[in-house]
């Protein structure tokens, strides 16, 4: 999977088969699914017949027919490319699951060796160290470290154990130590990986709601232009001009929105694909589209907004205690404390010039581990007895001596959302350590951008409202849900949805499952339970909750790309009229020559140039369709202005230049007279 991310756009391995597929896709029965390209294909067939029927120069009709076929093939190629890239990723996934065998428990509870494909839902298998887990399942007994790099690309092993939220295992991953009993939860071909593969390949792709609406618009435009062209023939008869069928078909194909019609499905496939490159698997294209519409992001505090653990941010010595002296005491009290909080105190003390000491350097030191009775930890030296703990525990330890200033500091820190730890040496209170939630880098700016885009961020936390408010303020989220229980989360989602908003969230535990199912975009962590994964409509293989933000961006990008290419396609028609209409009329009404504003060489070169432009633009826009329009976090009005300028105004201007250049080229090459 990690290799898939760095895929080149036009990799020969993908381009080769895609060219072949482009021809196979010419099958009209399959083409009907895409009305715009179907009409183009019919047009290509008609002009091919016209080669033998029409009075136009053969070379002209042949070239028009060829380019119309190319138009269809280019569109098919775009789709095949998108599918090919998906397949390449699917193959990478498949490699991880060849020839697996499983040790299945028989009813008599002895083991038998069977092929993984024979496993059925409900079977129980034993997986020992070094073996590959044969299918998706749930650990029902034991615990083991598992290498999930085949799926996540992450090399650090993870722990999987029975019960709780870390019981789900995925087929294709490898057990490194210990052994586990796994109950299989999916039949072969229905497992998580299988579903992923088929989605990525585009085999099961269904049109998304916006795609359906857009297809209707494009089909209606196609019908309208069919009417226009069919009416043009009798109108020509009235004027004594018999328009050739070839030219009418050429005009039709140029006017119908072939650019977007040809690239539409590629854009959809590429959208799912871009998510896969970010190691997120969407269960449907619909989910990707919904991601673009999200109004509210529910973000868990721990792990998403803040780093998992708190860190020492400040030392506040008690009155009369020197700062360096206190830093030294703080470090000593934490030397043996291997928790991340403890490590961070040692690191902070270095800022005060105190070198990190090792326990073995101090032979007379005795480490006092944290105990539930004292709720403190610390270190005893010959004379000193350093203790570190919550204010109440230290008060007990110092038998009531507790300076008022320290008490105030403790209060302040609590109110600011931090955790105060007090350090004492026997009866002397030395000062307070300020432990703080650390906001992940770059998030504050990102949330600001989201606000400008009209997306509300809500922080979910189990903290008390006071602490939650302080962290929410620091992180820059719009609101927070404190002391949140899973049912509160669900209630919040329902409330936002009742107001017509779309909600996205991440979750991993089984108790998250209802909320994940209720959310419009529910991203389950791959480390989460099977229940959570089933409930969500996306799975993040890296189990990085912050990625929700990128998921939204990919969704938006997909919609933007469709809109941009539709606008471009429709705007192109202006120039095509200016190329073809004068060419059609100039024989009957030589007076209309000034309408040929591009000064195209001849009627034949004008029509051919327009058709060639119409075909080539599809190829030129494949990279844009596959990569997507560049996403910028701006307010809607700014994005609209920008994209209208590029794809609307640009769409009017570009074909004038393109058609003129093609005209110069084909005339200089003597393709037409």
């Amino acid at each position: 999977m990690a290799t898939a991310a760095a895929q080149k756009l036009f990799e020969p391995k993908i381009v080769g088969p895609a060219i072949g597929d482009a021809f196979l896709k010419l099958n009209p029965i399959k083409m009907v699914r895409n009305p715009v390209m179907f009409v183009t294909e019919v047009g290509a067939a008609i002009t091919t017949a016209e080669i033998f029927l029409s009075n136009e120069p053969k070379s002209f009709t042949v070239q028009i027919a060829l380019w119309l076929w190319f138009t269809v093939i280019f569109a098919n190629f775009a789709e095949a490319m998108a599918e090919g890239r998906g397949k390449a990723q699917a193959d990478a996934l498949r490699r991880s699951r060849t020839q697996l065998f499983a040790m299945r428990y028989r009813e008599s509870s002895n083991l038998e060796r069977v092929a993984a494909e024979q496993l059925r839902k409900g079977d129980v298998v034993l997986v020992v160290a070094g073996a590959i887990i044969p299918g998706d399942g749930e650990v029902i007994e034991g615990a083991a470290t598992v290498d999930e790099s085949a799926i996540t690309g992450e090399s650090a092993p993870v722990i999987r154990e029975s019960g709780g939220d870390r019981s789900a295992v995925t087929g294709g991953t490898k057990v490194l130590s210990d052994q586990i009993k796994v109950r299989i939860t999916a039949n072969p071909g229905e497992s998580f990986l299988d579903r992923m593969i088929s989605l990525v390949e585009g085999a099961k792709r269904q049109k998304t709601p916006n795609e359906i609406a857009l297809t209707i618009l494009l089909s209606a435009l196609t019908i309208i232009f069919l009417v226009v062209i069919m009416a043009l023939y009798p109108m020509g008869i009235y004027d004594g001009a018999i328009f050739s069928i070839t030219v009418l078909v050429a005009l039709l194909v140029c006017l119908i929105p072939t650019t977007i019609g040809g690239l539409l499905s590629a854009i959809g496939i590429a959208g799912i694909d871009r998510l896969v490159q970010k190691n997120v698997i969407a269960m449907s294209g619909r989910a990707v589209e919904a991601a673009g519409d999200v109004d509210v992001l529910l973000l868990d505090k721990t792990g998403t907004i803040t780093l998992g653990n708190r860190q020492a941010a400040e030392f506040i010595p008690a009155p009369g205690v020197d700062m360096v002296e206190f830093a030294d005491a703080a470090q000593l009290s934490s030397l043996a404390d291997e928790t991340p909080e403890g490590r961070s105190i040692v690191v902070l003390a270095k800022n005060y010039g105190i070198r990190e000491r090792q326990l073995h350097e101090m032979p007379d030191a005795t480490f006092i581990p944290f105990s539930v009775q004292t709720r403190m930890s610390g270190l005893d030296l010959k004379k000193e007895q350093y203790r570190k703990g919550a204010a109440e525990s230290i008060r007990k330890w110092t038998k009531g001596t507790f300076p008022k200033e320290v008490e105030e500091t403790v209060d302040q820190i609590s109110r600011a959302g931090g955790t105060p730890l007090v350090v004492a040496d026997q009866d002397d209170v030395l000062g307070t350590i300020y432990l703080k939630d650390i906001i992940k880098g770059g998030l504050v700016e990102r949330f600001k951008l989201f606000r400008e885009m009209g997306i509300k961020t809500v922080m979910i936390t189990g903290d008390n409202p006071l602490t939650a408010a302080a962290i929410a303020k620091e992180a820059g989220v719009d609101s927070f849900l404190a002391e949140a229980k899973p049912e509160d989360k669900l209630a919040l989602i329902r409330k936002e949805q009742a107001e017509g908003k779309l909600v996205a969230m991440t979750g991993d535990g089984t108790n998250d499952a209802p909320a994940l199912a209720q959310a419009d975009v529910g991203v389950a962590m791959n480390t989460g339970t099977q229940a959570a994964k089933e409930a969500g409509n996306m799975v993040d293989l890296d189990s990085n909750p912050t990625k929700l933000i990128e998921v939204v961006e990919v969704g938006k990008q997909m919609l933007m790309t469709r809109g941009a290419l539709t606008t471009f396609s429709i705007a192109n028609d202006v120039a095509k009229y200016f190329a073809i209409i004068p060419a059609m009329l100039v024989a009957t009404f030589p007076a209309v020559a000034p309408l040929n504003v591009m000064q195209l060489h001849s009627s034949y070169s004008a029509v051919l140039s327009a058709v060639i432009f119409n075909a080539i633009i599809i190829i030129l826009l494949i990279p844009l369709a596959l990569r997507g329009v560049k996403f910028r976090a701006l307010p809607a009005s700014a994005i609209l202005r920008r994209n209208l300028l590029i794809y609307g105004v640009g769409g009017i201007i570009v074909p004038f230049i393109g058609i003129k250049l093609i005209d110069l080229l084909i005339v200089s090459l003597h393709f037409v007279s």
Partner: protein
Amino acid sequence: MTANQWLQLIVYFGALLLITKPLGLYLYRVLETDAKTFLDRIFKPLENLTYRLLRIDPHKEQNWKQYSISMLVFSAVGLVFTYAILRLQAYLPLNPQHFPNLSPDLAWNTAMSFVTNTNWQSYGGESTLSYFSQMVGLVFHNFLSAATGIAIAAALVRGIARNSAHTIGSFYVDITRVTYYLLLPLAIVFAVFLVSQGVIDNFNAYTTAYPLDQSAATTQTLPGGPAASQVAIKMIGTNGGGFFNANSADPYENPTPLSNFFEMLSILAISSGLTYYLGKMVKNQWHGWAVWAAMFILCISGFFIAFHYEQAGNPIHQGLGVATQDGNMEGKEVRFGIFNSSLFADVTTDASEGAVNSMHDSFTPIGGLVPLTNIELGEIVFGGVGAGLYGMIVYIVLAVFIAGLMIGRTPEYLGKKIEAYDVKVSMLSILILTFSILGFTAWAIVSPWGLAGLNNGGPHGFSEVLYAFSSAVGNNGSAFAGLTTDTPWYNTTLAVAMFFGRFLMIIPILALAGSLAQKKLIPQSSGSFPVTGPTFTLLLIGVILLVGALTFVPALVLGPVVEQFLMHQGTLF
């Protein structure tokens, strides 16, 4: 343009801008059933009596299907009613000139023409219809087809404004209230004004006059009739069917510069007010103004093009010694000149009015292309009363859908998601417009029946046919008059075209209203599609031109554009 013309232009659009808000606020009160108006004391009893007589419960609202059926049934009854009067006018009173009954095809065409708010006239008013036919048979529709248009627009706007609703208002309540509180009082005031300007209003038989200059002609017949009252509603309701054949070019209908100014203003008045009504209903007044701005820009652009080409005139006249600085005065009233003829022509086709104060057929080719294009856009530049707004909203929905995807969200119009169904019905209405105009024109132009009506050949003859079917489908009613259309074939096909252009358009639009109404209203944020401001206005204009106008480019090139080029080479048709 002279300073005086600039001044007139500024005063005209300034006045239109000024009346938009008060009219919009009043429309809001008329169309909200429970709101009070200052005319309640006079009309409330009448309104309640109407409901009692027709057994309508004014508080029972309809869903879009019921609304459509009511509208269709009501229109069908009106159609039969008028057809009967026209077929029987010889036996009915107020017929001092003893006009005979109309032929079946002419009666059918005329009845359909008025029921669809088109007011296409295959007849000459003063030489065909009795006072009774005009006052009862036609005026019924002048009020009620206008009220129907406003009702449909209101239903669509309600669909946008409401949250998860199943109903879009009551058709019968809407047309009753619009007629009593809006059209009737306005028509009365306007009729009195017109009489003050010299528009006739009597029941006299026609007068035979003996000119002082006996050498010129022996006698002249001066028609009579209740013109002022009919002209008032013809203008206000964007009907456009002249009491007399020459319509607003006739001094009996439009005698003074002041009457001309107010007739032009009355064409766009209600439609302009409806944009304010839209803004008020959806609680986004700047959206209303953004729509107004798009309409205004298209309207004034059309005028400038028409004026430019009319002022430039016909180069062939130059060789004939006609004063070229006067521009193309052919077919224009000297009283109105180039300026007021061009403005009237632009305005009457922006709206589905169709009244004329000059002969569009005699405009220069490009001058004539402007009214033709205005109609083919679907008359959404202010447009017919109600019809303009609902047509415009279809374009807005399409603009929002096409460009809305570009901001990276499912397109949303004022908090309503635009989905497959909405796109389908919106495109259906545009498809019907294109199909009807181009289909009938293509048929006419190669069929012996169609060609039989042509009095001019070449591209000009083509333009006349194209204009006739555009006008019929667009429910405009003005004509390139060089075409003889009082034939069974034209009467029948034009009537069918009018039917398509009205009712086949309205049904998808009511379906759109119903679909939007039942959607949840999504709260607006900075991520929502912006439907205010210059970007939106320009986008809307762009979509109107790209989706609306582009489909007619080939036909327009074959007609007016080719003709303009040929004119410059010295060929006329």
